[in-house]
């Protein structure tokens, strides 16, 4: 090692982003539904049981926003604004029969996730054949999904809040393999860069940073005696395929993901695909 750039790289690599817990208060939960009374009671019972992790520190106020309270999106948004909840719990295709065709979210959910800053927990549709899967008892196994975990303290903090006592929080980071391969292909055509070395080092670096961040997260939960376990899932792969595999392999009860994209009004592309397809797993959309 003999150049300024080489040593700068070493020192930059040694500067790590450490997990910094962000306080998250969930006092009021708004259950938005279009069920009849019986279905509503059943849904409320399930939701309060499933989210009992929120009751571990304080009592949570559950408020119902029923189908009769909103005929259109404007009414729905007014209802949310009126109650100012800390969390919205709902499901896809409100006031619609489209839930039978798993190709979209339904206009209410679509707008709700983008207009409000409140996190939205999306449950499987209550009218779905077989109802809400019975295995979903509590948030025992939670998966945080992102393609840029390092420094995203908020999503990891939500993971802490929503993981049930003695449960496992899987912090994941998946680099898009197709994008990686595209860059490697370009690099392979540049004679100044050793292609094999570039592949090895870039791959190593892409994986190392989120792993280091997860280590700092694990140090935090250990130091704070948080009653949860944490595991790292860091890899390169195809987003949807890999996420589905992880959810199945680790029997995930709740998936947490970011849906907002700074420079666009629509939901983030990968998040949208996941929210459309992962219909049997509760999703917390941030």
């Amino acid at each position: 090692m003999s150049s300024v750039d080489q040593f700068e790289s070493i020192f930059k690599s040694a500067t790590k982003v450490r997990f910094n817990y962000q306080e998250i208060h969930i006092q009021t939960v708004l259950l938005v539904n279009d069920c009849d009374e019986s279905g509503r009671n059943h849904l409320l019972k399930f939701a309060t049981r499933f989210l009992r992790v929120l009751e571990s520190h304080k009592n949570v106020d559950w408020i119902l926003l029923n189908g009769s309270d909103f005929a259109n999106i404007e009414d729905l948004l007014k209802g949310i604004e009126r109650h100012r909840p800390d969390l919205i719990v709902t499901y896809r295709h409100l006031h619609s029969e489209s839930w039978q065709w798993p190709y979209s979210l339904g206009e209410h959910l679509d707008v709700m996730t983008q207009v409000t800053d409140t996190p939205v927990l999306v449950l499987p549709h209550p009218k779905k054949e077989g109802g809400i899967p019975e295995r979903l008892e509590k948030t025992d196994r939670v998966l945080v999904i992102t393609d840029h975990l390092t420094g995203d303290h908020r999503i990891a903090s939500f993971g802490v809040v929503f993981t049930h006592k003695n449960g496992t929080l899987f912090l994941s980071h998946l680099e898009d393999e197709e994008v990686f391969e595209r860059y490697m292909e370009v690099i392979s055509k540049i004679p100044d860069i050793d292609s094999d070395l570039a592949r090895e080092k870039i791959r190593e670096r892409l994986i190392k940073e989120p792993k280091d961040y997860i280590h700092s997260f694990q140090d935090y939960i250990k130091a704070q005696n948080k009653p949860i376990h944490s595991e790292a899932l860091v890899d390169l792969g195809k987003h949807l395929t890999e996420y589905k595999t992880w959810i199945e392999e680790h029997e995930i009860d709740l998936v947490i993901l970011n849906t907002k994209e700074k420079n666009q009004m629509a939901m983030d592309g990968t998040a949208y695909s996941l929210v459309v397809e992962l219909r049997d797993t509760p999703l917390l959309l941030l």
Partner: protein
Amino acid sequence: MQESTTHHAAHSVSMGTTLLFATVLVGLIACLALEEKLHAKKSIIVGLFSVITLLMGDVFHILPIGALVNVFDEKITLPVYIPAVDWGVIAIILGSSIFVDVVSRSGLFTWVAIRLTKESKGDPLKLLYYYGVMTVVFSAVLNNVTAMIIVGSLTGVSLSKLERGNLLLGFLFIEGLLTNIGGLLTLISSVPNIIVGNAAGITFIQFFLRASPFVLVATVATLILGAKLFKIKSLTGDEEKSKARAMVESFDENDGIETEAFFKFSGIILVLFILTIATTSVLPYIKDLGMGYVALSFAAITLVRYKSRVDEFYRAIDWDLLGFFVGLFVVINVMEHAQVLNLIGKGMVPIIAMGEKLGTVSVMFGAALFSSVTDNIPLSAILAKILSNIGTSSDSALWWSVIFGSNLGGNLTPIGSASTLVAVTIMHKQNLKVSFAKFVKLALPYAAMQIVLAAGYILFFT
């Protein structure tokens, strides 16, 4: 350079021939001073001059071409430019640079650097003192350029992390100046030390004992003056202190460590290297083989760690620097045969004759001034040769005037030494505009203070 070549140095050469060769030497020095303008590396400049001077030397019949006789009275035929080179110096530089390169892969130096950063708790004044001391120690143990590269690159990263970019110029500037102070600490800390020390017969321990008090005083004075002139102060508020502490805590000193075993091995072998170099002059058998042998041996031992990838280290060797030395030794050897060094020596006699004190100080000021505008290596090589030829005793203060002058002169201008040039390069990389004139203006108080301190030290303590 070998003794056999110097026997021929006293043969008869006409004044015209001597003056012709002297003109070539002036041309070489001018080209080295204008290295940046010429867009040419040192090795190619000196290499071309060595080609020309060798040819001229043969044309004028001043070169000792023919067989050499070794201690066993065996005749050896070597090209005339081979014994012209001081291979002991080349071996020290080659061996120690490979050794340092391998050891730095262990993460040892970056570990020390980051530990010190964390110890400072992000306080700018403490950070300046710690980095300053680290610069001096690294310059002494490694070399000026590597020290500046390590500390300078860490400074850029850590001050950016601490959101103290406004202090970057001051830090880099002071560190650049301190590399040349640290370069005075040991016999192997800088090339002029090696060349002059070897010529004078000064041992590692003698050198360290003589130079270390000055290095200590000059380091403290430079840091105090630097903190004052660049307004680098301690943090006062509790909130400010706690924020800074949290920022430096995010550094992970273990990140660059490949394996713990190699890390520990590197620490141990570095200490052994310093001890062996320090005691080379008294160790049985080793003293006959010299410091170059020690440096190359340690390089070979550490390279075993990367035995299948040694070519990476061979590629990283500064061939420009080595080529420069080889060419320079050849040119100086030819100049010696052309009686040019004798002529310069005669010119120096009146200066030296000004008295033990005034003469010594004048040589130091002259060396410092010359070193500030061109490379200090040819200067120290020429002066060492001249002092040696006029029979200067090894305890004479004149040797120290050359050592101090040639090292400290580099602090006057950005081109005065390789390490200040690295400091300026890092400044430019960090978008800090420092012109030649601005550097001289900033450097003048420090360089003047250091040279005056050195003059006093030489007069009263050497």
